[in-house]
């Protein structure tokens, strides 16, 4: 167990280093973008004013509010302090809303869309891949090309195909939004139904792409494992096929867990395109508006969320792997 503790501590130290680097980059990179976003709100706020001094005063007021007149290092120090208190400041493009407010309004839409879609896609994809490897024959001949097609389809392509077929032509589902625009969010059945209907296309576009990639991975891993020497040996010692299949799929599943963690970790970033196409009120759409508006505080906060989710997912993955895969466990003591 000492070996495991050292492994954990080493991984944790790397995790912290990565977080610090990522945090810094998240702060600096948006601020290197060209353009002056403050000028944009100042112009909006100063609309109708003819007094040049007044306009100048409004501009300076917002410059102070967002502290962009201070040296970047000082801004960074203040930013760290604020973030630790949970304060991400005001959004520039959606002023006077705060960043925390904008994110909390959209992040749950993304999580509710992505998380179930990834899990469902992962489970279906792995089951189909495992079946294809075990059954082979016709099932495999159909599944494999289909999976390759699905997994290579870009997210926006899949979204547009579904959009054209199911909402433009068949008119089964609405084309955009998270719920009917005529409605005010509440807990009525009408509203919930509207959310469910709007949910389907973005959900299935993500599920289908996930299924493709996972099925291909699982199929080749399972075929590899089915031909492994230990399968032959176990058979010749009279172990039941059912038990052997359990061995095979458990071993083939291990690399697939990486795929799952990867998708969950990067889900916010991955959803961007699908959310934008369906105009879904999630974090992806928020990031798009933030980037278009040069909204530094919002960009930094959203990218920070994406980075943290990915890093936590990978960290958790390494820790879990160390526990479930004896081969990695043995390597830890090196």
């Amino acid at each position, binding site marked *: 167990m000492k070996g495991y503790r050292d492994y954990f501590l080493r991984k944790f130290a790397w995790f912290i280093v990565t977080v610090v680097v990522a945090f810094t980059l998240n702060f600096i990179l948006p601020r290197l973008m060209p353009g002056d976003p403050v000028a944009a709100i100042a112009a909006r706020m100063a609309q109708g004013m003819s007094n040049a001094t007044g306009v100048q005063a409004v501009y300076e007021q917002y410059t102070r509010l967002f502290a962009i007149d201070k040296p970047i290092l000082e801004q960074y120090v203040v930013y760290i302090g604020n973030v630790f208190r949970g304060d991400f400041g005001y959004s520039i493009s959606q002023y006077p809303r705060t960043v925390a407010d904008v994110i909390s309004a959209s992040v749950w839409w993304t999580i509710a869309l992505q998380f179930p879609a990834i899990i469902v896609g992962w489970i279906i994809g792995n089951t189909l891949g495992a079946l294809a490897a075990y059954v082979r024959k016709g099932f495999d001949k159909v599944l494999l090309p289909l999976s390759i097609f699905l997994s290579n389809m870009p997210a926006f392509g899949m979204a547009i195909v579904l959009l054209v077929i199911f909402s433009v032509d068949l008119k089964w589902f609405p084309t955009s939004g998270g719920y009917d625009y005529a409605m005010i969010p509440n807990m009525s059945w009408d509203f919930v139904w509207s959310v469910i209907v709007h949910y389907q296309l973005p959900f299935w576009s993500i599920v289908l792409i996930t299924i493709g990639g996972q099925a291909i991975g699982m199929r080749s891993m399972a075929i590899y494992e089915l031909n492994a*020497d230990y399968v*032959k*040996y*176990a058979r010749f*010692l009279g172990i039941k096929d059912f038990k052997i299949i359990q061995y095979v799929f458990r071993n083939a599943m291990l690399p697939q867990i990486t795929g799952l963690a990867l998708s969950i970790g990067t889900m916010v970033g991955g959803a961007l395109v699908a959310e934008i196409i369906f105009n879904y009120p999630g974090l992806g759409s928020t990031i798009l508006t933030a980037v278009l508006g040069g909204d530094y505080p919002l960009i930094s906060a959203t990218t920070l969320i994406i980075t943290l989710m990915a890093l936590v997912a990978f960290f958790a993955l390494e820790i879990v792997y160390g526990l479930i895969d004896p081969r990695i466990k*043995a390597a830890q003591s090196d």
Partner: protein
Amino acid sequence: MAKVVLEVNELTTRYITRFRESIYAVDHVSLKVESGKSLGIAGESGCGKSTLALSLMGYYFAPLHYTSGEIIVDERNITGLDPDEVRKTILGTEISYIPQAAMNALNPTRRVINFIEDVIQAHRPGITRTEVYAMAKERFELLGLPAEVLHKYPVELSGGMKQRTVIATSVILSPKVLIADEPSSALDVTSQKMVIKMVMDLMDKGIIKSLVFITHELPLLYNVTDDIMVMYAGQVIEKGSAQEMVFDPIHPYTKALMGSIIVPEAGLRNVKLAAIPGTPPNLKNPPSGCRFAERCKYVMPECRVASVELQKASEGRAYRCLIPEEDLRKAYKHEK
């Protein structure tokens, strides 16, 4: 005469390739192993010896298919039995197997004891964990393996230890016949010795009754087994007692096989190594005559005409050649 534990008559098995071609890797092979005896099978790579090992168990899965012949284990004919019946009542308990690649023979994500539990459970459903552990511990200790090995994962064991673990696992249910397919070929010399000693111990300690030992090293067989059978291109080319096969080979192939062995002694560099020229025939279309004809020093035109049958020489001795044994012996003497 002692009781025959394993008897195989005219067994033929083939591989069916994805292009639906048949490759007869085991072609009308017959053998007999008595209780307390061991049989060695030798031959070059690709001669069908490993396929024979797999075929002997009566449990076939693609691409290997049963074609004809019979297998009798302890007076019970197991040919034509339902595969599930073979799995339950033959494998592991009557006939067991040590694979060639012991390095990867154990499931990497299962502890040795759990794997052993699966093996025992497959034959004795309902056995408790404590009983399994007691059985495994007793067997491992009897074979000189520490009981701690049971709690390890395969990756935590060295190559030699893994091989010995595989051997102990194979005989956990005291099978009557053990088929060892090159159990020592991937190991260093020290581990090799340990493994060979362990296999011989299995016989001495009465854990198994008979042994079939497969290797490409003929002299190793001389030390391990009572009888030796040499295979070439899927067929038995000569069989006899270990003593006779090594010191008085009849078939030109056996003779050549003995000559191609490297003996580590002073001045080896000056000795010309007598390798056998040529390669074994392609079993997709085996030659119509003697399969060794292409590489044989003593080949005659008749050799290529019709297939050559096994000729009985003396009791338990047979060879597959058209030339009478006296003439072959004379020719060998003349060469010296």
